[in-house]
């Protein structure tokens, strides 16, 4: 009974992991489309961030879940899971900072036209 419950939990975790990896692939596709189609620098940067967070962090967490329940890996499965999760955490901390500072610099130096614009708090602050 307990063994069956364990197997069911394993299957569920595996399914969640595969779902996360698939979601990551979809996000990557959307990000690539957005990078090509979006009109200005800031919106395109939004698409790039989708590619990093949705296309790298989410599938890495999925990979860590999958390797956690892959018995054929032996004791190495914990290593794989830990490394994947830690990499996801690291990317989640660093990637938004990179895009933030890029956008900040571009706004400060007026490198890109702010074409389709609704609100510009930083520009109001500058004035």
């Amino acid at each position, binding site marked *: 009974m307990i063994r069956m419950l364990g197997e069911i939990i394993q299957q569920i975790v595996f399914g969640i992991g595969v779902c996360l990896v698939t979601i990551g692939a979809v996000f990557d596709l959307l990000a690539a489309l957005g990078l090509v189609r979006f009109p200005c620098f800031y919106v395109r940067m939004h698409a790039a961030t989708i590619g990093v967070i949705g296309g790298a962090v989410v599938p890495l967490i999925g990979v860590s879940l999958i390797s956690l329940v892959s018995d054929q890996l032996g004791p190495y499965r914990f290593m794989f899971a830990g490394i994947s999760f830690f990499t996801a955490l*690291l990317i989640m*901390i*660093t990637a*938004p*900072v990179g895009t*933030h*500072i890029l956008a*900040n610099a571009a706004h400060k130096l007026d490198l890109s*036209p702010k074409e389709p614009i609704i609100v510009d708090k930083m520009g109001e602050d500058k004035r």
Partner: protein
Amino acid sequence: MRRGISRSSLVIVSLALALSLILVYFAAMGGLGGHPSASIVGIGQFIVNNTYNVFNRTYWAGSPEAVTSIIWDYRGFDTIFETTVLFAAVMAALLLVPGGIRGRIQGSGKDEGLTLIVKTASKIISCIVVVLALNLALRGYISPGGGFAGGSSYAIAPLLLIAGLSVFYLVRLGYRLSRAIGLRTLGLVGLVVVSSLPLLYMGYIIQNQAKPGSMFPGYPVFLGPLYLGGSLIYMNVFEFLVVSMEFIIIFIAMFLLDRGCGGSA
């Protein structure tokens, strides 16, 4: 708004293409060197057979990590001279610094640095980098890594702090030019002591384990339940100290050269 491809980008792309084509051509023509000759293959076999050969300890290095064994045991002289080259380069850079060894960073730097988000993230990441670098250096005799890799990884932490916050934050943390030079000298002295200690026992210089023709019994490999790995761990730790401190010296020296504010202690 959008113009055609500019001329400079065209030049860059064609240069890169030509360069990669030339590289591929030379690699295909054997520019990377042919297959290693049979006499060289023998060295690799020797190292693989002897590095951690617990059954025949005549030529063993006492460490399962073959690369570290080569770097600090079989070809230890090479690494010592590499360290010397880096030492000389850093000394030459220090000669240019206004104020010399006692050069100090002056000013408060209240408003320096980037936004709050960048500051917080660079603090977190630099802590992680320090832990990873220590891991690389201290476990270099078991898993891939070593003193040089660990030291150059450690150097990323102060670099991040300089980029994200400012060099003044680094000074407030306790990074000083004189302290870095002192720690580097400590590491160099440690390297010299560890590599020349076997000479007292009528052994070879940079000797790790007992070898035929030498009285030196070798550095301890096992200490009870602990695994020490001969002289490799001491070498890695001292090399870590030397390399990381040399990178910090270079960063601070670059800042001092930029600002030109030397002065007395």
